[in-house]
C-alpha cells in the first residue's frame, strides 16, 4: 500500500508537469473559439483531481487496514534484475548507433539471459546468435528491410 501511495504521488507530479506545459498554451482564441490549450488544461486538471481522489482513498485504506506483513521473496534481487534490464536496454539504445541493430540485439540477449535468467554463457550465446541471425534473415530477405549495421555497414 505504501509503495502504491508513492507511485500515486509520482504520477500526480508527472501529470502536474503536463499541466504546467498546458498553461503555456492559449486557452481561447480572440474570436471566442477553443484554442489548442483548452483540452490539455481541462484534461490535466481532471486527471489531477482523479489522482488526488486516488491518493485520498489510498490513505484512508492505509488507516483502516492493519499493516499486513507482506511475504518478502528476496525483493532486492527482483528489483535489481528489473533495473538491469532497463539499464541494458538504455545501453542498447546508445550502442545501436555504433554496432547496428543485429549485433546490439545479440549482445542485449546475451547479457540479459546470463545475468537475469541465470542461464549458462554457452546456452545464452547459442540462443542469442541464432536469434540475431534469424532476425537478420527475416528483415533483410523476407521483409526486404535494411537493418542499420553501424560500424559493420
Amino acid at each position: 500500500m505504501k509503495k502504491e501511495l508513492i507511485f500515486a504521488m509520482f504520477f500526480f507530479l508527472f501529470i502536474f508537469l503536463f499541466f504546467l506545459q498546458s498553461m503555456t498554451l492559449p486557452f481561447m482564441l480572440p474570436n471566442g473559439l477553443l484554442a489548442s490549450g483548452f483540452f490539455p488544461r481541462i484534461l490535466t486538471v481532471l486527471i489531477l483531481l482523479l489522482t488526488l481522489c486516488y491518493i485520498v482513498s489510498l490513505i484512508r485504506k492505509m488507516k483502516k487496514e492493519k499493516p499486513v506483513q507482506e511475504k518478502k521473496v528476496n525483493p532486492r534481487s527482483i528489483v535489481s534484475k528489473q533495473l538491469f534490464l532497463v539499464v541494458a536496454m538504455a545501453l542498447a539504445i546508445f550502442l545501436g548507433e555504433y554496432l547496428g541493430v543485429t549485433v546490439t540485439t545479440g549482445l542485449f540477449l546475451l547479457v540479459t539471459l546470463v545475468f537475469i535468467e541465470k542461464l549458462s554463457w554457452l546456452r545464452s550465446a547459442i540462443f542469442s546468435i541464432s536469434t540475431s541471425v534469424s532476425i537478420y534473415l527475416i528483415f533483410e530477405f523476407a521483409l526486404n528491410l535494411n537493418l542499420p549495421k553501424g560500424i559493420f555497414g
Partner: protein
Amino acid sequence: MELQFLMEGFVSLLNPQVIMWCLVGVTLGTLVGALPGLGPTAGVALLLPLCFSLDTLEALVLLMGIYQGTMYGGRMSSILVNVPGEASAVVTAFDGYPMTKKGKAGYALALSAIASFIGGMIGFMGLVFLTPLVADWALIFSSPEYFALILFALLATSGLGDQSLLKGLIAMGLGLLLSMVGMDAIQGSQRLTFGLLGLWDGIELVVVAVGIFGISEVLVNIESKGKRSGDGDSSDIARKIPFKELFPTIKQIISNGWSIVRGALTGFFVGTLPGAGATVATFLSYSTEKKLSKTPEQFGKGKDQGLSGPESANNASIGGALIPLFSMGIPGSGTGAILLGALIMLGLQPGPLMIEKSGDIIWATIAGLMLANVLLLILNTAFVPGFAWLIEVVKPYLAPLIAALCFIGVYMINYSYFEVGLMLLLGVLGYFLKKFHFPLAPIVLALVLGGMLETNYRQSLLLSHNDFSIFFTRPIALVFMLLTIFVLIFPIIKKVFKIEKKQNDLTY
C-alpha cells in the same frame, strides 16, 4: 450483395503469398497469445511492426491471423498450466485445467479449438451481414454524434471492464493526454512537447502499445518468476499431453452443440458493445451454461459445456468487435484500437465511408478473417502438442526475447532511437500501472480516439457557435450521452442496490 462482395474478397485471397501471411499470423498469434501474460492486445501490439513492410492486403490478412491466433493462444496456457494469458482466458481455466488434471488436456484443447472455430464462424457471418447496415446508418453521423459515441466508447471501456472506475478513468485520461502531444489538428501549433523535437509529430501508437504492454510484461515476468522461485513453486513444469482421446467424437461435439451456439450468439452481441468484449462474453456464457445445466455442480470440475460455451463466445466476439471498427472507425477494445491504428498507418480512412472507398480491401480482410479461422482450426488440432512443447522450450528465454522484439519492433517504425527510449519510459510507467491494477486497454483506446474526440468536440462547438446543448438536442447524440451518464453512475447504482455479483458465483 454482401455475399458477392465477400466472394470477391475470397478471390483476392487466392494468392499464395497472402495465404502464407495469414498462416504466419495465425501461428505467431497462437504462440504469442499462449505465452502467459500476453493477451490479444499485447500480442497484436508486439507483432504489429511486422505489417509495415507488407502491402495493405497482406498486412491486414496478417493482422486478422494474429488477432484470431492470440485469441485462441491464450486458451493453451489456461488449459495446460492454469495460467490465463489474459482476462478473457480466465473462464477457460475453470473447466479446462481440471480436464488437464484428469489427463484430458488434448481433448480440452481440441474441444476448445472446435468451439472457437464454430463461434468464430458465427461471429464472421454476423460481421458480413451487419457491417454494411451499420455503415449506412453511420452515414447520418455528424461531429456531435461522433463526439458522443467516442465519449461513450471510452468511458464504457474504462468503467465496465475493471473493478475500479477511478483507475479506469485515470488510465483513460493518461491515454487522452498522450494523444494530445504534438501538433494540434485544428490550430496547427505544437503542444505538450517539452521542447523535444522527437515529440513534434506526436507519439506513435506502436510506441505506447509496445511499451505499456510489452516492456511492462517483461518486468512483471521477471517479478513473478522471482516470486515463484522464492516460493519453490514449480507449477510451470511441462505436462505431457496424452494423444489418446485427443479429438472429441461427433457425439461429444453434438452434445456441446447448443452450448456452442448460445456462446457464439452471446459473444457476438456482447462483442459489438464498446467496453464489454470477450471477457464479459465468456463470463456471461459460463454463467448461462451453469444455470441451464442439469448438473451445475459438475462445473469447475472439468465439465465440457463449461469450456465449449465460453470458448465459442470468445471467438464470436471478434466478429462483433470488428463491426463498429469497420463500419464507423470506432474500436470497442484495446485490440480494436491497435487494429484501428494499423488501418490508419496502412493508409485507410476508418469511418462509415471506408467500406465504400476501400471496399475491396475490407471485404478481402473480412474473408481473411474466415481463412484465419479455418487455418486456426487446422493448426490447433493438428499441432497442439507441438505448440505446447514449443511454449515450454521458449519459457526460459521469454523476458529477454520479448524485450529484444520490442526494441526492434519500435526502432523499425521510424528508425528512431528516441522512440525506443520513449517506449522504455512508457514501459516502466506501464509496469507500475499494471502492478497497481490499473487497466491498460483504456490508455491505448484513448490514445487512438483522443484526436477524434477533441476534433469532433471542437467542430461541434464551431457548428453550434459554442452552444454546448448541441450534444443534447440531437437524438443520436442524446442517446449516447445518456448511455455515457449511465456508465458513469452504474457503479454507484450497483453499490446502492448491492447487486454486485460475488465472484464466488463462478468459483470452481
